[in-house]
Each structure stands twice: as structure tokens, then as C-alpha cells.
């Protein structure tokens, strides 16, 4: 087992035909470090793994180099189509250190990221870079924690003309930061919420008990945690926030700001949505 390496401009690629093991990672990281020391133009280290993954022990070599690269505003990538590796890197919170990608074209220059302390621009209407972390977070959280596959549908602005959407239970977070003042809510009908909770706990629930209610808040908490990490890397300054749960048959979520963005999702049991509200929309 070995790897091939090539340098293409600012990028150094290690191509592997097998799993990136502890031994291979140690060797590749030593060579990458040597190259980074002598070639100041080098900004990206890519481990091209094809369909293969990374052994857990390899991270003890990858993480220190990845962290040192990040400090120097450089980036390490794991290029693999093995989604289990993507999930593992994310679930262990290592995706900042070694960014999982599926295509080489995803290797972006770090100059796109605002410098430390520089605030990101406030989100404007349908700002994809702001919305996507919430969409990805929703799909990821439901898949990992509730074994629920969902699909994102087309987002739209909620106006006074938008028909009332059926909501029985919602988790709500109020957020104040330098770049965002508003609220985020995840809204479910009883039917969809019970289906998600049933999958999450592996037992069938027919009604929302007190014990189950806070599941809406926890789902939102995890989605926000996922989105916050990505958005704070882009210069937002979201702090921790605690969700509250609202439950009533056919309730309405009213925010003090003028309009809201609706991110609809479709799961097997039906549709649900996230509502992001800020005065900037």
C-alpha cells in the first residue's frame, strides 16, 4: 500500500488506492509538512481517496497538520465519495481541520473566507451561503439522529399573502449577533413529528407526550449547532442559544420582523419547514 503525490500550483495531492491508514497518514503528513516548509505558495493538501475512507487512528497525524495549516490560513481536504467518511469527519467535529469534499473543484482558495475578526455581511434575500448550512444541517441531523431521509424543497419568502401553514409543534431560537437579529423555528405537524420521534427512538409513538415535546427543541439545537459552526467560519458571530418549544394545535409562528424565509422539507411522513426571520430579509 502506498500513495502517489503531485503538486499542482498551490495544491499538493496525495492519491491513494486504499484506505488512508495510520502508517500512510504519518508518512504523507511528514512529506506534506516538509513541502509546506519549503514551498510557501502551497495552500491546499488534498488526500484523494477515491471510494476509500480514513482509518480513525490516521486522524492523530492529520489533525495536528490540519490545525497548523488552518492557523496559517491553509486547508487540508479529504476527497472521497465514501459518505461514511464525510459523516465520521463531521460527527467528530474535525471537518474544519480536514474538510471532506466529493469533487476536486470544491477546493476553494482560503481568501474567500473573511479574516479572523472580520464580520461577514448580513444575509440578504435568499442568500444561499447563509441558508445552505441550515438546509444541510436539517438533512444531516434528521439522517444521523432520527434515521429519517428528507429532501429540501424550494425556499420562499413568507408574506401576508402566503397561506397559513399547518404547525402543531415548533422549536424556536432567538438569535442576536453582529450580523443577524432574528429567529429560527423548525415547525412540524403532529404526524410528521411523531414519525420522526418514532424513528429516533425505535418505538412507535401515537401522541406527543411531555417527554417527547422537547425533541423539537433538540432537533433545532443540533441544526443550529451545525449551521453556527459553518457560518461563524465565514465571519458571523453566533453565540450559543437555548431553544424553546411551542405546542398548540394549528399554531402560527409570528416574528416581530417584517418577513420570513421558509425552507420547506419533504420527508416520508409529510412536509415540515424551517422559518428564518430577520429584518434583513
Amino acid at each position, binding site marked *: 500500500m502506498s500513495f502517489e503525490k503531485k503538486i499542482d500550483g498551490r495544491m499538493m495531492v496525495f492519491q491513494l488506492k486504499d484506505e488512508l491508514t495510520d502508517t500512510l497518514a504519518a508518512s504523507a503528513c511528514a512529506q506534506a509538512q516538509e513541502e509546506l516548509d519549503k514551498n510557501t505558495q502551497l495552500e491546499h493538501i488534498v488526500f484523494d481517496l477515491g471510494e476509500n475512507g480514513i482509518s480513525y487512528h490516521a486522524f492523530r497525524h492529520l489533525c495536528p497538520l490540519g490545525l497548523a495549516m488552518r492557523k496559517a490560513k491553509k486547508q487540508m481536504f479529504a476527497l472521497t465519495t465514501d459518505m461514511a467518511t464525510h459523516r465520521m469527519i463531521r*460527527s467528530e467535529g474535525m471537518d474544519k*481541520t480536514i474538510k471532506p469534499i466529493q469533487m476536486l473543484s470544491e477546493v476553494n482558495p482560503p481568501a474567500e473566507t473573511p479574516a479572523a475578526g472580520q464580520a461577514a455581511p448580513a444575509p440578504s434575500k435568499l442568500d444561499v451561503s447563509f441558508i445552505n448550512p441550515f438546509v444541510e444541517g436539517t438533512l444531516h441531523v434528521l439522517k444521523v439522529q432520527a434515521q429519517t431521509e428528507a429532501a429540501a424543497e424550494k425556499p420562499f419568502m413568507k408574506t401576508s399573502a402566503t397561506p397559513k401553514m399547518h404547525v402543531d409543534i415548533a422549536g424556536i431560537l432567538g438569535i442576536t449577533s453582529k450580523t443577524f437579529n432574528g429567529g429560527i423555528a423548525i415547525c412540524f405537524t403532529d404526524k410528521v413529528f411523531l414519525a420522526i420521534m418514532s424513528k*429516533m427512538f425505535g418505538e412507535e409513538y401515537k401522541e406527543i407526550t411531555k417527554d417527547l415535546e*422537547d425533541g423539537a427543541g433538540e432537533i433545532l*439545537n443540533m441544526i443550529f449547532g451545525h449551521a*453556527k*459552526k459553518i457560518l461563524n467560519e465565514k465571519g458571523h458571530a453566533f453565540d450559543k442559544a*437555548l431553544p424553546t418549544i411551542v405546542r398548540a394545535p394549528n399554531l402560527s409562528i409570528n416574528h416581530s420582523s417584517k418577513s420570513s424565509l421558509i425552507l420547506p422539507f419533504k420527508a416520508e411522513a409529510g412536509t415540515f419547514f424551517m422559518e428564518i426571520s430577520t429584518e434583513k430579509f
Partner: protein
Amino acid sequence: MFPANTRILVVDDMMTMRKLVIKALKEMGFSDFIEAGDGAKGWEALSGSTVPVGIVVSDWNMPGSTGIDLLKRVRAESRFKGMPFFLLTAEAEAQQVAEAIKAGVSGYVVKPFTVESLKIQFEATYKKMAA
């Protein structure tokens, strides 16, 4: 791996998350659990448990006394020296991870989590303690 009869304290303000953590721990073979809704209640449960608690799994972000508050308190108490303490949190930013490591966390699991991710942390800590 830690003995299956180890008493585990699960701390989270969200009942569903406590239930989910216990479900995962049961899948890992454990069967003795006590629960608390925040760091202060976690400390009471830990100090007052008739059967000694062997492992703590705590959420970080809770109203009032947080998981990191509980961790610091545990690490400051000699009778709980070396107790495996795992933080389970939606906070995955490097700054938070660094703060947890500094406070003496044994393992850090990011939510959403899988049984496998929790097991990896338990096994790594057990190996470290056994070495």
C-alpha cells in the same frame, strides 16, 4: 471496555436527549443509569449516588449550570479523580473543543451522534486509562 455494570450519570436539560443517550448506552451494553437536568443537579446526583458513578455523559449547553461547569467541579474534587467525563454537544467549534480539553474532558462527541461515535470515545478513554 468499561464494565457493563458501571453506573453512568447522564446530564441533559432535554429529556429526549437523555433518553437517546441512554438508548445508545444500552446498545453499548450498559444498564445502570441515573439522570439529571443540569450541571448543578448532576453534581447532586454524582455526590449523592449510593452506588458510585463510574462515568459521566453530559450535555454542554444547559440553562443555569452547564456541562463545562460540572466538568470543572468534578475535576476539582479529588474523590472523582480520573473519572471518565464525556461532553455531548452540538457545539463543534474548535474554540469549544479546546475549552473542553483544557477543562479535562475525556471525550467530546458532537451531536447529532451515532452509537459508534460514542463507543469510539468510550473505547479510546478506556484504553488510555488502562495503559
